[in-house]
Protein backbone atom coordinates (compact mmCIF):
# COMPACT_ATOMS: atom_id res chain seq x y z
CA UNK A 1 0.00 0.00 0.00
CA UNK A 2 1.26 3.42 -0.88
CA UNK A 3 -0.16 6.90 -0.36
CA UNK A 4 0.70 10.46 0.63
CA UNK A 5 -0.46 11.52 4.10
CA UNK A 6 -0.52 15.21 4.96
CA UNK A 7 1.13 16.34 8.17
CA UNK A 8 -0.88 19.49 9.05
CA UNK A 9 1.56 20.36 11.85
CA UNK A 10 4.66 20.57 9.68
CA UNK A 11 2.65 21.17 6.51
CA UNK A 12 4.39 18.47 4.53
CA UNK A 13 3.60 15.14 2.89
CA UNK A 14 4.71 11.81 4.32
CA UNK A 15 4.96 8.88 1.91
CA UNK A 16 3.72 5.54 3.16
CA UNK A 17 5.03 2.63 1.09
CA UNK A 18 4.45 -0.58 3.01
CA UNK A 19 5.59 -2.86 0.14
CA UNK A 20 9.12 -1.51 0.60
CA UNK A 21 9.45 -3.62 3.75
CA UNK A 22 9.94 -6.58 1.40
CA UNK A 23 12.73 -5.02 -0.67
CA UNK A 24 15.98 -6.91 -1.27
CA UNK A 25 18.13 -6.78 1.84
CA UNK A 26 21.88 -7.50 1.58
CA UNK A 27 21.71 -10.31 -1.00
CA UNK A 28 24.81 -12.55 -1.26
CA UNK A 29 27.21 -11.35 -4.02
CA UNK A 30 26.15 -14.18 -6.35
CA UNK A 31 22.55 -12.98 -6.17
CA UNK A 32 23.00 -9.26 -6.72
CA UNK A 33 19.81 -8.10 -8.48
CA UNK A 34 21.58 -5.32 -10.41
CA UNK A 35 24.55 -7.28 -11.77
CA UNK A 36 24.30 -8.35 -15.44
CA UNK A 37 22.40 -11.61 -16.01
CA UNK A 38 25.00 -14.34 -16.54
CA UNK A 39 24.40 -17.33 -18.81
CA UNK A 40 22.72 -20.15 -16.91
CA UNK A 41 22.42 -18.08 -13.73
CA UNK A 42 19.36 -16.44 -12.21
CA UNK A 43 17.83 -13.53 -14.12
CA UNK A 44 18.64 -10.21 -12.47
CA UNK A 45 16.88 -6.88 -13.03
CA UNK A 46 19.13 -6.40 -16.07
CA UNK A 47 18.62 -9.07 -18.77
CA UNK A 48 21.77 -8.20 -20.73
CA UNK A 49 25.05 -10.03 -20.15
CA UNK A 50 26.88 -6.74 -20.21
CA UNK A 51 26.02 -3.05 -20.07
CA UNK A 52 27.57 0.34 -19.56
CA UNK A 53 25.04 2.37 -17.55
CA UNK A 54 21.47 1.20 -17.00
CA UNK A 55 18.37 2.92 -15.68
CA UNK A 56 15.24 1.05 -14.70
CA UNK A 57 12.06 1.56 -12.74
CA UNK A 58 12.46 0.61 -9.10
CA UNK A 59 10.79 -2.69 -8.21
CA UNK A 60 9.90 -1.29 -4.78
CA UNK A 61 9.00 2.31 -5.61
CA UNK A 62 7.98 4.94 -3.09
CA UNK A 63 6.01 6.61 -5.90
CA UNK A 64 4.23 4.92 -8.77
CA UNK A 65 3.24 5.98 -12.29
CA UNK A 66 -0.08 4.21 -11.86
CA UNK A 67 -0.52 4.90 -8.17
CA UNK A 68 -3.42 3.13 -6.55
CA UNK A 69 -6.22 4.85 -4.68
CA UNK A 70 -5.21 5.49 -1.03
CA UNK A 71 -6.19 2.66 1.32
CA UNK A 72 -7.57 5.12 3.83
CA UNK A 73 -10.10 7.92 3.44
CA UNK A 74 -8.82 11.43 4.05
CA UNK A 75 -10.62 14.49 5.40
CA UNK A 76 -9.96 18.19 5.86
CA UNK A 77 -7.45 17.68 8.68
CA UNK A 78 -5.86 14.44 7.49
CA UNK A 79 -5.55 14.81 3.74
CA UNK A 80 -4.49 11.83 1.67
CA UNK A 81 -3.35 11.67 -1.95
CA UNK A 82 -2.21 9.07 -4.43
CA UNK A 83 1.57 8.68 -4.25
CA UNK A 84 2.05 9.34 -7.93
CA UNK A 85 5.55 9.67 -9.36
CA UNK A 86 8.35 7.64 -10.89
CA UNK A 87 11.25 5.99 -9.04
CA UNK A 88 14.28 4.89 -11.00
CA UNK A 89 17.53 3.12 -10.19
CA UNK A 90 20.71 4.09 -12.07
CA UNK A 91 23.37 1.39 -12.15
CA UNK A 92 26.74 3.06 -12.72
CA UNK A 93 28.70 0.05 -13.94
CA UNK A 94 28.31 -3.72 -14.46
CA UNK A 95 31.14 -4.29 -11.93
CA UNK A 96 29.88 -5.28 -8.51
CA UNK A 97 32.87 -4.59 -6.27
CA UNK A 98 33.57 -0.97 -7.02
CA UNK A 99 32.26 2.52 -6.28
CA UNK A 100 31.47 5.69 -8.19
CA UNK A 101 34.69 7.22 -6.84
CA UNK A 102 36.69 4.43 -8.51
CA UNK A 103 35.14 4.97 -11.93
CA UNK A 104 37.14 6.75 -14.63
CA UNK A 105 36.35 10.38 -15.38
CA UNK A 106 35.04 9.08 -18.73
CA UNK A 107 32.51 6.81 -16.99
CA UNK A 108 31.40 9.58 -14.61
CA UNK A 109 31.12 11.86 -17.66
CA UNK A 110 28.70 9.34 -19.21
CA UNK A 111 26.75 9.30 -15.96
CA UNK A 112 26.40 13.11 -16.12
CA UNK A 113 24.83 12.68 -19.57
CA UNK A 114 22.49 10.03 -18.19
CA UNK A 115 21.46 12.37 -15.33
CA UNK A 116 20.83 15.11 -17.89
CA UNK A 117 18.76 12.82 -20.09
CA UNK A 118 16.72 11.47 -17.17
CA UNK A 119 16.06 14.99 -15.85
CA UNK A 120 14.75 16.02 -19.27
CA UNK A 121 12.72 12.87 -19.94
CA UNK A 122 11.17 12.54 -16.48
CA UNK A 123 10.59 16.28 -16.24
CA UNK A 124 8.67 16.21 -19.53
CA UNK A 125 5.81 14.28 -17.87
CA UNK A 126 3.03 16.66 -16.98
CA UNK A 127 2.48 15.11 -13.55
CA UNK A 128 6.15 15.32 -12.54
CA UNK A 129 6.95 18.58 -10.76
CA UNK A 130 10.37 17.73 -9.40
CA UNK A 131 13.16 15.36 -10.49
CA UNK A 132 15.37 14.48 -7.56
CA UNK A 133 18.68 12.77 -8.37
CA UNK A 134 20.64 11.28 -5.47
CA UNK A 135 22.96 8.56 -4.23
CA UNK A 136 23.05 6.85 -0.85
CA UNK A 137 26.42 5.22 -0.30
CA UNK A 138 27.42 2.92 2.55
CA UNK A 139 25.68 0.68 5.03
CA UNK A 140 25.66 3.41 7.69
CA UNK A 141 23.43 5.41 5.35
CA UNK A 142 21.04 2.46 5.04
CA UNK A 143 22.14 1.07 1.70
CA UNK A 144 21.02 -2.55 1.26
CA UNK A 145 22.64 -3.27 -2.13
CA UNK A 146 26.40 -2.91 -2.48
CA UNK A 147 26.50 -2.72 -6.27
CA UNK A 148 27.26 0.95 -7.15
CA UNK A 149 24.05 2.71 -8.02
CA UNK A 150 22.08 5.90 -7.53
CA UNK A 151 18.41 6.74 -7.64
CA UNK A 152 15.96 9.24 -9.06
CA UNK A 153 12.70 10.11 -7.36
CA UNK A 154 10.35 12.05 -9.60
CA UNK A 155 7.84 13.84 -7.41
CA UNK A 156 4.32 14.95 -8.23
CA UNK A 157 4.99 17.93 -5.95
CA UNK A 158 7.98 20.08 -5.00
CA UNK A 159 9.61 18.54 -1.88
CA UNK A 160 9.84 20.77 1.22
CA UNK A 161 13.61 21.31 1.29
CA UNK A 162 13.55 22.53 -2.30
CA UNK A 163 10.48 24.67 -1.55
CA UNK A 164 12.42 26.30 1.27
CA UNK A 165 15.45 27.01 -0.96
CA UNK A 166 13.19 28.38 -3.69
CA UNK A 167 11.48 30.68 -1.23
CA UNK A 168 14.66 32.00 0.41
CA UNK A 169 16.32 32.63 -2.97
CA UNK A 170 13.16 34.34 -4.27
CA UNK A 171 13.06 36.62 -1.22
CA UNK A 172 16.76 37.43 -1.72
CA UNK A 173 16.19 38.14 -5.41
CA UNK A 174 13.21 40.38 -4.66
CA UNK A 175 15.17 42.35 -2.09
CA UNK A 176 18.62 42.63 -3.68
CA UNK A 177 17.97 41.77 -7.35
CA UNK A 178 20.75 39.18 -7.14
CA UNK A 179 21.04 35.39 -6.94
CA UNK A 180 21.51 34.17 -3.37
CA UNK A 181 23.66 31.24 -4.51
CA UNK A 182 25.88 33.44 -6.72
CA UNK A 183 26.49 35.67 -3.70
CA UNK A 184 27.35 32.66 -1.50
CA UNK A 185 29.75 31.48 -4.20
CA UNK A 186 31.37 34.94 -4.50
CA UNK A 187 31.80 35.15 -0.76
CA UNK A 188 33.35 31.67 -0.53
CA UNK A 189 35.72 32.38 -3.44
CA UNK A 190 36.84 35.67 -1.87
CA UNK A 191 37.26 34.10 1.59
CA UNK A 192 39.14 31.07 0.14
CA UNK A 193 39.42 29.17 3.45
CA UNK A 194 36.37 26.97 2.91
CA UNK A 195 37.16 26.09 -0.70
CA UNK A 196 38.06 22.44 -1.27
CA UNK A 197 38.60 22.38 -5.03
CA UNK A 198 37.66 24.35 -8.13
CA UNK A 199 37.74 24.03 -11.88
CA UNK A 200 36.56 26.35 -14.65
CA UNK A 201 32.91 25.37 -14.30
CA UNK A 202 32.40 24.38 -10.66
CA UNK A 203 33.46 25.24 -7.11
CA UNK A 204 33.47 22.74 -4.25
CA UNK A 205 33.47 24.09 -0.71
CA UNK A 206 32.29 23.38 2.81
CA UNK A 207 29.73 26.12 3.37
CA UNK A 208 29.88 28.61 6.22
CA UNK A 209 26.66 27.02 7.51
CA UNK A 210 27.69 23.34 7.10
CA UNK A 211 25.68 20.94 9.22
CA UNK A 212 28.04 17.95 8.81
CA UNK A 213 31.82 18.13 9.36
CA UNK A 214 32.67 17.12 5.78
CA UNK A 215 29.60 18.53 4.03
CA UNK A 216 30.82 19.60 0.59
CA UNK A 217 28.66 21.62 -1.78
CA UNK A 218 29.45 21.91 -5.48
CA UNK A 219 28.03 25.02 -7.14
CA UNK A 220 27.98 25.75 -10.86
CA UNK A 221 30.15 28.83 -11.45
CA UNK A 222 27.65 30.00 -14.06
CA UNK A 223 24.17 31.07 -12.97
CA UNK A 224 22.23 28.09 -14.31
CA UNK A 225 19.15 26.43 -12.92
CA UNK A 226 19.31 22.83 -14.11
CA UNK A 227 21.56 20.12 -15.52
CA UNK A 228 19.73 20.55 -18.83
CA UNK A 229 21.48 23.95 -19.14
CA UNK A 230 24.96 22.39 -19.02
CA UNK A 231 27.35 22.84 -21.94
CA UNK A 232 29.52 19.95 -23.16
CA UNK A 233 32.43 21.38 -21.21
CA UNK A 234 30.38 21.68 -18.03
CA UNK A 235 29.34 18.02 -18.28
CA UNK A 236 33.00 17.01 -18.42
CA UNK A 237 34.04 19.42 -15.67
CA UNK A 238 31.32 18.12 -13.36
CA UNK A 239 32.66 14.59 -13.88
CA UNK A 240 36.16 15.82 -13.07
CA UNK A 241 35.26 17.67 -9.88
CA UNK A 242 33.07 14.79 -8.64
CA UNK A 243 35.96 12.39 -9.13
CA UNK A 244 38.29 14.69 -7.13
CA UNK A 245 35.87 15.18 -4.24
CA UNK A 246 34.93 11.50 -3.97
CA UNK A 247 38.59 10.39 -4.09
CA UNK A 248 39.47 12.95 -1.42
CA UNK A 249 36.68 11.51 0.71
CA UNK A 250 38.01 7.95 0.23
CA UNK A 251 41.57 9.00 1.03
CA UNK A 252 40.59 11.06 4.07
CA UNK A 253 40.30 8.07 6.44
CA UNK A 254 41.56 5.46 3.95
CA UNK A 255 38.16 3.84 3.62
CA UNK A 256 35.34 3.86 1.12
CA UNK A 257 33.65 6.96 2.48
CA UNK A 258 29.87 6.79 2.96
CA UNK A 259 27.78 9.76 1.93
CA UNK A 260 24.43 11.00 0.73
CA UNK A 261 24.82 12.97 -2.50
CA UNK A 262 21.89 15.07 -3.70
CA UNK A 263 21.38 17.27 -6.73
CA UNK A 264 19.29 20.41 -6.31
CA UNK A 265 17.90 22.06 -9.40
CA UNK A 266 14.80 23.84 -10.62
CA UNK A 267 11.42 22.09 -10.59
CA UNK A 268 9.99 20.78 -13.84
CA UNK A 269 6.53 22.31 -13.44
CA UNK A 270 7.08 24.68 -16.38
CA UNK A 271 7.46 27.81 -14.24
CA UNK A 272 10.47 30.11 -14.34
CA UNK A 273 12.99 29.89 -11.51
CA UNK A 274 15.63 32.49 -12.38
CA UNK A 275 16.29 32.92 -8.67
CA UNK A 276 17.51 29.33 -8.34
CA UNK A 277 20.99 27.91 -8.94
CA UNK A 278 22.06 24.35 -9.74
CA UNK A 279 24.17 22.63 -7.08
CA UNK A 280 25.13 19.31 -5.48
CA UNK A 281 25.32 18.68 -1.74
CA UNK A 282 27.19 15.84 0.00
CA UNK A 283 26.22 14.80 3.53
CA UNK A 284 28.85 12.36 4.85
CA UNK A 285 27.94 10.91 8.25
CA UNK A 286 31.49 10.41 9.56
CA UNK A 287 32.96 13.11 11.81
CA UNK A 288 36.20 11.18 12.53
CA UNK A 289 37.52 7.85 11.29
CA UNK A 290 35.57 5.97 13.99
CA UNK A 291 32.77 8.32 14.91
CA UNK A 292 29.49 9.00 13.21
CA UNK A 293 27.40 12.12 13.45
CA UNK A 294 23.95 10.88 14.42
CA UNK A 295 20.85 12.95 13.92
CA UNK A 296 19.85 12.91 17.57
CA UNK A 297 17.51 14.94 19.79
CA UNK A 298 18.37 18.45 18.70
CA UNK A 299 18.61 17.60 14.99
CA UNK A 300 15.58 15.30 14.84
CA UNK A 301 13.39 16.93 17.46
CA UNK A 302 14.23 20.61 17.14
CA UNK A 303 15.42 20.75 13.54
CA UNK A 304 18.71 22.37 14.58
CA UNK A 305 22.02 20.82 13.66
CA UNK A 306 24.95 20.86 16.05
CA UNK A 307 28.21 20.70 14.11
CA UNK A 308 31.18 19.78 16.33
CA UNK A 309 33.69 21.16 13.84
CA UNK A 310 34.67 24.37 12.04
CA UNK A 311 34.04 24.39 8.30
CA UNK A 312 37.30 26.32 7.72
CA UNK A 313 39.39 23.59 9.42
CA UNK A 314 37.61 20.70 7.71
CA UNK A 315 37.97 22.38 4.30
CA UNK A 316 41.69 22.83 4.94
CA UNK A 317 41.93 19.14 5.85
CA UNK A 318 40.12 18.08 2.66
CA UNK A 319 42.17 20.48 0.51
CA UNK A 320 45.37 18.77 1.64
CA UNK A 321 44.13 15.26 0.83
CA UNK A 322 45.41 13.84 -2.44
CA UNK A 323 43.09 12.25 -4.94
Amino acid at each position, binding site marked *: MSELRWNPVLEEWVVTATHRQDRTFFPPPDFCPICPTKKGKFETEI*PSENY*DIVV*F*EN*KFPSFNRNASVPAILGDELYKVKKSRGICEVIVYTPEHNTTLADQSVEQI*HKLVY*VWKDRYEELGSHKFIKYVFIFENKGEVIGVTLHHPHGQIYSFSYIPPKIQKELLSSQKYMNKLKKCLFCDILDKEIKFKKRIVYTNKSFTAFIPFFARYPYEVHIYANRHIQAISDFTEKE*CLNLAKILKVIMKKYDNLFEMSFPYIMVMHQKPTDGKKYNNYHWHIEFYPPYRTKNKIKFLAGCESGAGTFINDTMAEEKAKELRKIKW
Partner: protein
Amino acid sequence: MKIKKTKIIKADGRYLVYYEEDKSVKKNKVPLFTKEGNQRGVRRRKSNV
Protein backbone atom coordinates in the same frame (compact mmCIF):
# COMPACT_ATOMS: atom_id res chain seq x y z
CA MET B 1 30.29 12.66 -26.16
CA LYS B 2 27.28 11.10 -27.85
CA ILE B 3 25.28 8.61 -25.84
CA LYS B 4 23.06 5.98 -27.41
CA LYS B 5 20.07 4.76 -25.45
CA THR B 6 17.96 1.66 -25.92
CA LYS B 7 14.70 1.28 -24.07
CA ILE B 8 13.03 -2.05 -23.40
CA ILE B 9 9.87 -3.00 -21.53
CA LYS B 10 10.26 -5.86 -19.11
CA ALA B 11 7.74 -8.67 -18.61
CA ASP B 12 6.26 -6.97 -15.54
CA GLY B 13 5.69 -3.72 -17.48
CA ARG B 14 8.58 -1.76 -16.01
CA TYR B 15 10.95 -0.05 -18.45
CA LEU B 16 14.72 -0.34 -18.57
CA VAL B 17 17.09 1.92 -20.52
CA TYR B 18 20.60 0.92 -21.60
CA TYR B 19 23.00 3.83 -22.10
CA GLU B 20 26.29 3.47 -23.93
CA GLU B 21 28.67 5.72 -25.78
CA ASP B 22 27.77 5.96 -29.45
CA LYS B 23 31.08 5.05 -31.02
CA SER B 24 29.72 5.50 -34.55
CA VAL B 25 29.99 9.27 -33.99
CA LYS B 26 33.50 10.34 -34.92
CA LYS B 27 35.26 12.58 -32.46
CA ASN B 28 37.04 15.71 -33.74
CA LYS B 29 40.43 14.35 -34.51
CA VAL B 30 43.48 16.44 -33.72
CA PRO B 31 45.93 15.99 -36.61
CA LEU B 32 48.97 14.09 -35.49
CA PHE B 33 51.26 16.19 -37.65
CA THR B 34 51.24 19.93 -38.29
CA LYS B 35 51.53 21.49 -41.75
CA GLU B 36 55.23 21.76 -41.22
CA GLY B 37 55.44 18.05 -40.70
CA ASN B 38 56.33 18.26 -37.03
CA GLN B 39 54.71 15.82 -34.69
CA ARG B 40 52.33 17.56 -32.26
CA GLY B 41 53.52 17.80 -28.72
CA VAL B 42 57.09 16.77 -29.61
CA ARG B 43 59.67 19.49 -29.39
CA ARG B 44 62.07 19.75 -32.28
CA ARG B 45 65.59 19.07 -31.22
CA LYS B 46 67.98 21.89 -32.07
CA SER B 47 70.13 19.53 -34.10
CA ASN B 48 67.19 18.88 -36.42
CA VAL B 49 66.45 22.57 -37.04
